């Protein structure tokens, strides 16, 4: 990146923090409008049922209740929601999600009635007064059951409950490489269902002005423009009459990408009732009605040589999609999963088929990492199994297979952009003292201690995405990002980005990029986001795209402004444009630095407009829509050291170390924060979290009491290191850091735990590796006796 670096690369503390630390943030639930009323949702009592009748009369009579609205009310007023990632060449079925169920419910999060009342307490009282008569239908929650003949049918449009069937083959034929292999390792791996559970529940407030026919919706969204586009379609109102504002958003992790029934319902009711309507989901609703993540059964075959060289990977996946297809859902277990199955390795054949299976469960969609953690888990787990079968050190198996240099065209057709894959790998092992831990492990094993070391190397396609590729896969729009940068007459700068950070910190990192490009103080740059009326159409924040894509747009716009400013400076200094140099916020004439004007002088001149060159318009702003020409490919290696308690089977992480190459790091303080949080979410999948349904489709883990989000006591300190190989395809060289931790940590920790148990002969245990699951696996293998426990 050209230009001086006064801010980029520095640990700048965040501009957004003052308001958040003092209780002055503005989340959707903090919005209070005059005359506002409150909606509450009655959700289905059954996971699969016909609605025979709904009696709302008692609820409607409660004082303070404005009305009770059922599916019959909404079905002709609001179009059902459909996925925005209509996967091509996959026989995708047109699954429709009515915002309020009518005739039939398909999971326990389906809304069957909506109460609007003067206050929330009354609204919840009224929910209890609604009487619904259901005819329960047979239920299926398990993917392997759902695809069997005779399984309960969830949507008429999807016979056999298969919503799509996606196939991809890259490189040589798998059967052919398997014939050349010395061994083919087969496993059935479960990637369990997770619940994103952002700390801020989802919420929406809608207000309608019948005079201007304008509807304003505040909603917990990672992509307010996408919300506006889809909601306008569903509501049947012109897009320019809908303003969507996502103010401070309290975490998303993918679960606030989707357009859900809740926001559409309150929008419609605000129009119909003429009062602002607010809805805030309860935490139970968040578990039931907000998307879940992962949930694969993967049948995996890895063909390899005795040397450890992996020739090919064949995967057959049943991906549980839940009861409906969410906004981005079909792309997650396919494009973002199947294309990552070569990892950072020289694998010659990838053969993958994925069936997206409908069940009577909460819809599954993008959860932090979205497909890439599932692919990495398969590869990294299988490499460890392979190492064990070949009697090799897991590190050596990776050395045999790892790509030497980039750019590298993977067998999947992806062009890995830049990286020092082996160097980063060796650096991680060295910093983590891998071989010292191996010695500790063998010494301590003699004393009965169960210590294990786990490695995970990963690569991910990030910086989503070149629009032509996004469209080719069936994504509903391009995946560029936008920005409007406006320099005010005083030289202060507003940056209106189409990204929508919700904790990642781009109010600061984008300001760093702009301040460096324009030579102004970071204090003079404000980053504005989240309001469709202020920002150009933007695609939002997810998939680690905000810095590489949104940040590149910001940089290009800042450069465009600097170039216009240079022309103005030339006019002010009565010099030729090509003789004007720029440094530390001043334009000066080459060779005579005393003849200079400041960026602020130029900004004012752009608006006084009396000394502009004849071909130049007044004003100083730029709009850029940046479409990346390639993905970015962050990669790295993480090492976990764990100890399993031989009495309780509880896992303790003794050390966790990450070396990631996310290209140019704009702000190491914030990037480390992304790694920390991602790693802990990855550890959580490895050890703690899993969503459980009973046979009737009731979610048994429907809150923090039953679903184990780790507390501070359950997770370790995390050591984060970076190697910076600039991304060659974008002007700032950044690759994205939001998901690396989640991708790498899960297999690193699982590999470490199974390494601790290696001498006991247990090759694999499905996640999460809870004490119970470890005990059960050891018991079933008959090895508890080896630990001196006959239980």
């Amino acid at each position: 990146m050209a230009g001086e670096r006064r801010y980029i690369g520095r640990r700048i503390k965040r501009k957004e923090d003052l308001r958040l630390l003092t209780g002055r943030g503005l989340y959707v639930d903090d919005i209070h409008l005059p005359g506002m009323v409150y909606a509450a949702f009655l959700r289905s009592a059954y996971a699969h049922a016909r609605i025979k009748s709904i009696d709302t009369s008692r609820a409607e009579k409660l004082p303070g209740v404005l009305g009770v609205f059922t599916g019959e009310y909404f079905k002709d007023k609001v179009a059902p929601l459909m996925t925005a990632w209509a996967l091509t060449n996959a026989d995708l079925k047109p699954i429709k999600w009515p915002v309020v169920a009518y005739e039939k419910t398909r999971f326990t999060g389906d809304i069957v009635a909506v109460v609007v009342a003067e206050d929330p307490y009354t609204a919840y009282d009224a929910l209890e007064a609604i009487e619904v008569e259901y005819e329960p239908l047979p239920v299926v929650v398990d993917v392997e059951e759902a695809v069997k003949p005779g399984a309960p049918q969830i949507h008429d449009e999807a016979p056999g409950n298969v919503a799509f069937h996606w196939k991809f083959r890259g490189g040589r034929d798998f059967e052919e490489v398997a014939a050349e292999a010395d061994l083919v390792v087969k496993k059935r791996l479960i990637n369990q269902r997770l619940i994103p559970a952002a700390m801020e529940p989802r919420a929406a407030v809608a207000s309608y002005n019948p005079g201007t026919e304008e509807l304003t919706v505040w909603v917990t969204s990672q992509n307010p423009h996408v919300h506006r586009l889809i909601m306008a379609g569903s509501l049947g109102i012109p897009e320019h009459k809908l303003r969507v504002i996502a103010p401070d958003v309290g975490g998303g992790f993918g679960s606030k990408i989707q357009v859900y029934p809740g926001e559409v319902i309150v929008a419609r009711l605000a129009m119909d009732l003429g009062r602002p309507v607010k809805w805030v989901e309860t935490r139970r609703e968040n578990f039931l009605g907000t998307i879940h993540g992962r949930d694969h059964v993967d049948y995996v075959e890895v063909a390899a040589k005795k040397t450890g060289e992996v020739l090919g990977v064949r995967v057959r996946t049943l991906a549980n999609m839940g009861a409906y297809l969410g906004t981005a859902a079909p792309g997650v277990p396919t494009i973002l999963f199947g294309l990552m199955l070569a990892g950072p390795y020289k694998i010659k054949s990838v053969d993958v088929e994925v069936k997206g299976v409908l069940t009577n469960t909460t819809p599954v969609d993008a959860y932090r990492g979205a497909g890439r953690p599932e692919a990495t888990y398969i590869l990294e787990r299988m490499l460890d199994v392979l190492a064990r079968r070949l009697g090799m050190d897991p590190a050596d198996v990776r050395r045999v297979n790892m790509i030497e240099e980039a750019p590298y065209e993977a067998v999947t057709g992806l062009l890995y952009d830049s990286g020092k894959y082996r160097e980063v790998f060796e650096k991680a092992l060295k910093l983590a003292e891998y071989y010292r831990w191996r010695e500790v492990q063998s010494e301590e094993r003699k004393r009965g201690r169960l210590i294990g070391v786990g490695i995970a190397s990963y690569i991910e396609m990030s910086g989503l995405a070149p629009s032509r590729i996004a469209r080719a896969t069936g994504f509903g729009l391009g995946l560029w990002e936008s920005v409007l940068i406006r320099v005010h007459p005083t030289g202060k700068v507003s940056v209106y980005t189409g990204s929508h950070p919700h904790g990642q910190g781009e109010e600061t990192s984008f300001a760093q990029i702009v301040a460096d490009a324009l030579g102004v103080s970071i204090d003079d740059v404000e980053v504005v986001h989240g309001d469709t009326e202020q920002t150009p159409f933007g695609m939002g924040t997810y998939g680690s795209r905000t810095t590489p894509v949104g940040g590149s747009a910001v940089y290009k716009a800042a450069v465009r402004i600097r170039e216009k400013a240079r022309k103005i400076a030339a006019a002010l200094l009565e010099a030729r444009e090509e003789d004007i140099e720029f440094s530390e916020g001043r334009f000066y004439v080459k060779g005579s630095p005393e003849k200079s004007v400041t960026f602020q002088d130029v900004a004012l001149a752009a608006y006084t407009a009396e000394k502009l060159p004849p071909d130049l318009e007044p004003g100083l702003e730029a709009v850029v829509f940046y479409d990346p020409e390639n993905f970015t490919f962050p990669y790295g290696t993480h090492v976990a050291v764990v100890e399993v308690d031989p009495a309780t089977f509880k896992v303790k992480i003794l050390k966790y170390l990450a070396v990631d190459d996310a290209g140019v790091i704009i702000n190491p303080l914030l990037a480390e924060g992304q790694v920390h949080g991602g790693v802990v979410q990855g550890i959580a999948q490895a050890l703690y979290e899993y969503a459980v349904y009973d046979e009737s489709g009731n979610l048994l883990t429907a809150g923090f009491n039953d679903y184990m989000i780790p507390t501070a006591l359950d997770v370790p300190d995390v050591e984060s290191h970076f190697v910076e190989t600039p991304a060659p395809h974008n002007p700032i060289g950044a690759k994205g850091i939001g998901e690396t931790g989640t991708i790498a940590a899960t297999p690193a920790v699982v590999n470490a735990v199974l390494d601790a148990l290696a001498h006991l002969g247990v090759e694999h245990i499905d996640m999460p590796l809870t004490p119970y699951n470890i005990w059960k696996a050891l018991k079933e293998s008959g090895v508890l006796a080896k630990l001196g426990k006959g239980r």
Partner: protein
Amino acid sequence: MEGDGGGLIEVTMRVNGREVKARVPPRMLLVHFLRDVLGLTGTHVGCDTSNCGACTVIMNGKAVKSCTVYVFMADGADILTVEGLSEDGKLHPIQEAFWDNHGLQCGFCTPGMVMTLYDFLGRNPDPTEEEVREAIEGNLCRCTGYVNIVRSALDAAQRMKGGGGG
């Protein structure tokens, strides 16, 4: 917010140093009173089961989850919320430490974390990392992995020992 549940109860309390009088329904929770009646929206609601700690405030010197307290139970109490933590525009050392150590990302759990640590560091001015982790066990965070929250807390303890308030 009205709600049903019987006649209104009159309550008086001090909130962030100011006397507050109100008539509230018996079933109204303190967190809703702070947020919806007094407009102190820095205190957040993150669950319905008293697990998450986002609603933590100081009541009579102790950290409490304000979703577990009825307003009438706080009658006569002295309440401190995150809005009352900084004095004369100067951040409390805990807030400063969170800022410097990137102890927050989305910010939703932050007020509850800060208030829990305000209570804890008042009782234990020189904690170990393990003690800090135990202290915030009742406050969930989904963004930071707790790494920088723990670092912020340890840093805050040092700052407070240096006479930076508390």
